[in-house]
């Protein structure tokens, strides 16, 4: 009997006990599984170049994609505005999934409502659901704003959000002047990064449309983009701008919403960009997007008002942070503060101290297009050599930008860029052309297990480790943390590799 009161074994150990191993053996006879020979043959085959070619030739089948769908990004952007209720028009299962997905990453509640469309709504349209939903949501949750985004069913049947919302106002379900933002976010177009963009643009359109730029303020707007590290990163941005002495408006700031305290009170809403801030943002000196592929449409809209814009690719590391600070300085006319220059020196100091461990290490990276770009750029600065760079939701433009980046460094020579490929493709790539490390999200843990390539978790979603999102990855300080995360893995792996013989199991590294 494996279980005892003194040492209770759970799933992680219980099933390794002989009683359960024997049970598995007995079970096999009823499974009609493949023969051991077939399994061994196929297990070996999936690591070959021949399989890789077959695997990469797939045109219709997607396996283990590293992307989510538009409304998830829209929901994420929605809750970054003060007391804004994310409101999905479509089937209720979508909303349940978005909420769970974000809760699993942030270890935080994630509120959002659905119009719960069912078969009758599919036939007659979802207007009644939308109107009833708005009335209930407005009455019960008392938001300051409701941000509607659509899911598949509403898009496929062609529900007209503008007309329905108008009708809701006419029927008195919500007050005439109650702010409602709309975003069309079908899941069969783009990915979560586009949904983020559409929602942010929707907010700006709602509050800026028909207005022109007035007297320019001293403020700078920042659109952070979809970012699993938003809690740490947005706060780091505020600190950096504080050093500059520049007022900052983060357009969609989720840093408080996804980091509420446990103090006895559940806050359905916390923090976020206020409507007044959004309204004022039209007169800012400029808007900086931290992630270009999360903000194409929003930036076009902002540019059209005559406001200067600039965009980055998830700026990590030295040059990316330098460029960000110089851009802030350029837009505001303020010099880069000495305190930040000192931080820069500290990052260089850390990179120098650890350079002998970092130089020449090879990495494969997957994630959203901006993240993969920013991560690659930083690793090149450490003498790291990227191998496979993959974004399931990356396109031709991204691929070209990546290749241009790689061409700037001798360490980029070996790298291959994989736009639109999934993580089962990555498996073949790593099986045939391995790298020392893999950088990505928790989804990479299967690759780590199957191929023995250590995974460094540095992008959304991180389900199986806690609290990383509370720390920044942007700016010199954030970069320092990224550096330490990578370095810890390198040295942990080295210790594990050398612990058996003791040779090279050194106390000082």
């Amino acid at each position: 009997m494996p279980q005892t009161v003194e040492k209770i074994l759970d799933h992680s150990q219980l099933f390794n006990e002989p009683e359960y191993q024997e049970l598995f053996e007995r079970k096999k006879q009823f499974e009609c599984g493949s023969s051991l020979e077939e399994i061994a043959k196929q297990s070996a085959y999936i690591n070959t170049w021949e399989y890789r070619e077959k695997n990469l030739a797939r045109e219709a089948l997607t396996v283990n994609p590293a992307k989510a769908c538009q409304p998830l990004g829209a929901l994420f952007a929605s809750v970054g505005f003060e007391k804004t209720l994310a409101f999905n028009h479509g089937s209720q299962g979508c909303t349940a999934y978005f909420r769970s997905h974000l809760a699993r990453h942030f270890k935080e509640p994630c509120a959002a409502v659905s119009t719960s469309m069912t078969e009758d709504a599919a036939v007659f349209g979802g207007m009644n659901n939308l109107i009833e939903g708005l009335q209930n949501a407005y009455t019960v949750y008392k938001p300051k704003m409701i941000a509607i985004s659509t899911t598949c069913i509403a898009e496929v049947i062609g529900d007209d959000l503008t007309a329905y919302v108008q009708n809701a106002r006419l029927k008195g379900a919500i007050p005439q002047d109650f702010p409602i933002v709309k975003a069309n976010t079908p899941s069969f177009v783009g990915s979560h990064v586009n949904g983020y963009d559409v929602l942010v643009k929707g907010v700006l359109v709602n509050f800026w449309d028909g207005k022109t730029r007035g007297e320019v303020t001293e403020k700078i707007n920042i659109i952070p983009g979809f970012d699993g590290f938003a809690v740490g990163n947005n706060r780091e941005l505020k600190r950096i701008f504080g050093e500059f002495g520049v007022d900052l408006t983060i357009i969609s700031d989720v840093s408080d919403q996804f980091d509420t305290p446990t103090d006895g009170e559940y806050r359905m809403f916390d923090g976020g960009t206020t409507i007044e801030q959004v309204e004022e943002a039209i007169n800012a000196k400029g808007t900086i997007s931290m992630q270009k592929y999360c903000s194409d449409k929003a930036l076009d809209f902002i540019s059209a008002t005559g406001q200067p814009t600039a965009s980055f690719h998830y700026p990590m590391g030295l040059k990316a942070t330098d460029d960000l600070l110089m851009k802030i300085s350029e837009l505001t006319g303020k010099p880069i503060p000495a305190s930040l220059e000192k931080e820069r020196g500290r990052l260089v100091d850390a990179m120098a101290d650890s350079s002998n461990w970092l130089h020449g290490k090879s990495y494969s990276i997957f994630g959203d297009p901006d993240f993969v770009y920013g991560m690659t750029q930083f690793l090149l600065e450490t003498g790291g050599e990227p191998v496979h760079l993959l974004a399931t939701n990356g396109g031709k433009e991204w691929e070209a930008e990546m290749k241009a980046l790689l061409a700037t460094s001798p360490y980029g020579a070996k790298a291959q860029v994989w736009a639109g490929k999934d993580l089962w493709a990555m498996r073949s790539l790593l099986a045939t052309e391995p790298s020392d490390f893999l950088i990505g999200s928790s989804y990479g843990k299967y690759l780590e297990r199957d191929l023995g390539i250590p995974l460094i978790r540095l992008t959304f979603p991180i389900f199986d480790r806690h609290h990383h999102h509370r720390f920044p990855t942007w700016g010199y300080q954030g970069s320092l943390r990224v550096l330490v995360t990578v370095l810890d893995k390198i040295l942990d792996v080295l210790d594990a590799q050398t612990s058996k013989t003791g040779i090279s199991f050194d106390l000082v590294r």
Partner: protein
Amino acid sequence: MDAESKAARKQLVADVLSEYPEKTAKKRAKHINVYEEGASDCGVKSNIKSIPGVMTVRGCAYAGAKGVVWGPIKDMVHISHGPVGCGQYSWAQRRNYVSDGVTGVTSWVTMQVTSDFQEKDIVFGGDKKLAKVVDEIEAIFPLNKGISVMSECPVGLIGDDIEAVAKKKTKEIGKVIAPVRCEGFRGVSQSLGHHIANDVMRDYIVDKAPPAPETWVSTPYDVLIVGDYNIGGDAWSSRILLEEMGLRVIGQWSGDGSVGEIENGPRAKLNLIHCYRSMNYICRHMEEKYGIPWIEYNFFGPSQIAKSLRAIAALFDETIQAGAERVIAKYKPLVDGILAKYKPRLEGKKIMLYVGGLRPRHVSDAYGDIGMDVTATGYEFAHSDDYQRTTEYIKDGTLVYDDASEFELEHFVKALRPDLVGSGIKEKYGTQKMGVPFRQMHSWDYSGPYHGYDGFAIFARDMDLAVNNPVWKMHKAPWGKE
């Protein structure tokens, strides 16, 4: 419960309902009740459409069909057919453990396989793409024993004929291809997805099962485990008891299950069903068509385990009956030890539950075993037969809610201040903010198994670590006002 307390609970319900618009309050009132001892059901309406905008906790038919019933079948490739999201969010989230499977070679449970619909697939239809997806699955996953097509919302709206594609491709590849019409807009919750999933399993595997091979030797003790999804290994810690009492488990449906085990189905002498809600349909069918009787059992906590073992054994001969007694006796010292250790720490603690198919009632006596008291409970997607069965478990005055909204749950937690809440990931963190301990009772909060005697030990340990962790006394700053 005394009349005064009961009246207070009724007032609490009225207060919460009063926050809704009138029409909504009227609708929701039918789903919430304070249970009266002796009533034949819980006095709540169920299996009705959720109200838009109130933040229901429910999911959809796809979640019920792919996420619950089909997804755990390990040697099939399950295509999330449609856009990328549904498959992405349900990817490896239910902890359906697998024995003896090589991921991507003989098992696909922890993989996300999708046709990733693009706009052109919506405009021109997805059938051609589906056919190609099947070909590509065959090319890169040749050892699969079958394929399921789990339809997402758009598929049912654009007039695709996945049944025709399945039929054509089945002929070509000679394996089962099961088209499951589980679009998320069908029905009112996960529940219809379960039903649809059962029906497709019936039509495409069970009723088409080939005759037993010549090497197959039937025994009078052949049983199936039905409606156990092996979350955290639950089906294994159940199976071990059934085998120890002398039964032969010829299939697990569907946790750690295989096509072979589903095809074994018609040869069973008895179906043992754990999650009644999600798989009663197939049991009824097998009873009708193959004459296989079925019995519900409950392997949560020693009281119910012993009761179930005896009830199952009563349907067999004396050998098995003696086997059941032997098993109960064997584990008694373990049970006594666990109770001695944990009951004093948990005695009198109140728990509030809000879960899915069977747990709002099934875990009730397990809590009773460790001295805890279920003060409120409810289901996301139950039917009236579930609420009838629930009366066997709950006490007078228990607050019962059906398809509760987050708003209602928050207010009930605030007012009742239970010592523990058991619900899902969406409810977990908000509850903890209030300083109330929480256990996810869908995923066992990344623990488990909870079934069987081995599982009960873990269950008791987990409830103790949740309720008695020092952090729950820390949420008020020492300088704050009471």
